[in-house]
């Protein structure tokens, strides 16, 4: 079980190292445990998260790629699709069986054909365009809809924080 998961993760790691997508870096933090990765995601340009480098943790199950990994931002995040503790709520990370929000068709959900790269790319597009149908963070979703200026201000603060630049 873990053997084939390990080989697949190794292949993905290799691919992500040799052909990294723009602004994304991912790999195991410590190769003693290949099932725990850290990813750095650059905020997409032209959005309120532009320029930030957001670290996230990816935890893979032993039966990967049959089951999806779990993803959690390790920095502070304020986004309609990210829980307060940093867990990411996007359809690609949901196993075909479970559907906590009840809005996704299984076509958008996890399948072994998906990969770390695809997950991270969808997270980037999620950062760009929040999907306020899934209310992982209700406050953020509300603010995104009603008070965009305040939302942008918070995002700006988070971006500065991830870059280690003190907020003026």
């Amino acid at each position, binding site marked *: 079980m873990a053997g084939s998961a390990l080989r697949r993760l190794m292949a993905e790691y290799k691919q992500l190292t*040799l052909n990294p997508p723009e602004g994304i*870096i991912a790999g195991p933090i410590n*190769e003693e445990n290949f099932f725990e990765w850290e990813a750095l995601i650059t905020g997409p340009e032209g*959005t309120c998260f532009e320029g930030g480098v957001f670290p996230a943790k990816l935890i893979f199950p032993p039966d990967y*790629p049959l089951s999806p990994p779990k993803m959690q931002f390790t920095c502070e995040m304020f986004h309609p699709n990210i829980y307060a503790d940093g867990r990411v709520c996007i359809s690609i990370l949901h196993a075909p069986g479970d559907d906590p929000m009840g809005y996704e068709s299984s076509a958008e959900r996890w399948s*072994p054909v998906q990969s770390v790269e695809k997950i991270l790319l969808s997270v980037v597009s999620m950062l760009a365009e929040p999907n306020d149908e899934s209310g992982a963070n209700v406050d953020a979703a509300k603010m995104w809809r009603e008070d965009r200026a305040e939302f*942008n201000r918070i995002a700006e603060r988070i971006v500065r924080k991830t870059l280690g630049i003190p907020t003026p």
Partner: protein
Amino acid sequence: MINFHSMPVILLDRLPLPSLRAYTIISVVLLSCSVYYAVQVTSDPNWKANATAQTDDDSDAEVPDLEETDIEVDSQNVSMGFQLGEMVTFMIQEPLCIWTLINMAYCCLILLGKFIQKLVFGELRVSEQQHIKDKFWNFVFYKFIFVFGVINVQYMDEVVLWCSWFSVLGFLHLLAQLCKDRFEYLSFSPTTPGWSHIRLLGLLISILILSGLLFLICVAVGFFGGFNTFAFMVAECVQLSVQTLHVILRYALHLYDMRQGSTGTAGGAVGAGAGRVWERRGPLAYYSELVFELAGLLLDLVHHLHMLLWSNIFLSMASLVICMQLRYLCHEIQRRVKKHRNYLWVHNHMEQNYPMATVEELAESSDNCAICWEKMETARKLPCTHLFHNSCLQSWLEQDTSCPTCRMMLNIQSPVAMEASRHIDHNLLAGEGPDNVQNANRRPPNHFFHFDGSRYVSWLPSFSVEVTHTQLFRSNQAQPAQTSQLDAMARQVQQLFPHVALTTVIEDLRVTRSVELTIENVLDGRVVAPPPMFQRDSDPPPQVPEVELITTVATRNEPTSWEDLCAVAEIRDVSESVETSANLGGRFSKSSAERERILQLRKDQLLMAARRRYMEKHRPAEPETSPSETDQKDEMQQDKDDDHIINASPNSSLRQRHIDS
């Protein structure tokens, strides 16, 4: 497993336990004290008369036979060996000395455990420690129930015997658990050195051999102690062997896998041979897993049933605990059998419906298996012409019923899922037919119970209960339970109209709730593609606040901190760093240490570059620019032009840091 551990563990964590060193010292001191005491007493030739007088009344059971052996010894012959024998006899008779001996034995056991841990495992991980702690308390709890509840021992020496048996057994159990945990952890890493595998396997095999020895002890005890005692002891013993064997087998398979993997990627001819073995390995691994899991569970079940039925513990606390455990075991066995039936079903379904791909087909699609990303020597073909490894497809279809690549619904109805879906089908059919529309539209009657207590006796309360039927199939909102059903319907429609996007079909089905109606809609051209997912509700991000934000940030920035920050990002040595960036660019090292280092460097670079870009963009618009700042500006401009430098510039400082650390 029912866990009763939490409370004692919490209590124990609060208790100030002595360190192992202190405990060892105390034990040794106690032992030497009692030895000294024993020497003192036995140096007096008349000690036996005193001792028998003393011990006669408190432990009748063991004294007589000891006396018999002692009397035969000639008291005149005072050799060294005799002295020692005398001493040991005395210590066994003296309760205080017995306890120090037992304490010393436990101390030795703990030290042995510590030694093995140092030798084989090194530092234990937190989860391993926690696991061991839990397992330990669980074991103590169950054995306590067993000794005092099930066996119901009366005599102290019996308790001591059982305790020593369980101590050894528990010790081996904990070691086996630790081995299992560590094996699972090691299997998460591709770069475990060979000797750690060898040490772990060596320990596992010694546990297996020791459990064989314990089995012999069981036989010997059973010969004198009767069948029940034998069965009780042997069950635990066999359980240990089964668990250990299971881990050894999994270990062997894993090592084999890893070796196959490395040869498979290394060379073509070897890989081809490995691929064929690979296909056979799947069922073998599955069935060995099944046999071991079921054997373990059944053994446990029989053991618990034995405890429940052959000892008079009905209607006691012990029986309650055992019944709970039995319930758990039954549930587990049921679950396992269900899983196996599902496996068989999927297996047969695949054999019957999906042919193996021909050589031409394999050659045609040069892709790797989409599930494991490895080359396919043999493959199964789904109706949608997608190819997968047999074993990969099997394990996917056990949990899902669609093609991993194109999500086409496959026509699989496993016996487990059958009942649930049949129920849904029924409901759906009822709603689909035109005759039934009325029927389905009518809300099912709500049940309303009302109890008016005061009508009977004045002090009785009145209450009412309303039972409402929630409607699953007529609401506009898609319900979680039915999305898969919706998908299945969408596939049906899409099979007829492959040119229509799946999401479009699903959108329409959400409204019509019927395959026929949707087909009609498609035919009539009434189906329109929905807007893309993410733009449905969100407006494009407004530009104006963005600009405002930038200016406010810029003006509020303090020039001093700004310069500091620039200085941080600035440290660079171009000539050196170009070389490093070339080193990093598009390379996947074979050594794990180097990979880790490169990854860290790449991350640092990304962060640095992002920081610099950010500061460049949000540079405060100052009227007069100092010469140093113009320099920076130039440099940054240059950075922007030259990707190499932008990537490389923070390197030297980073590298400096790396060497330092």
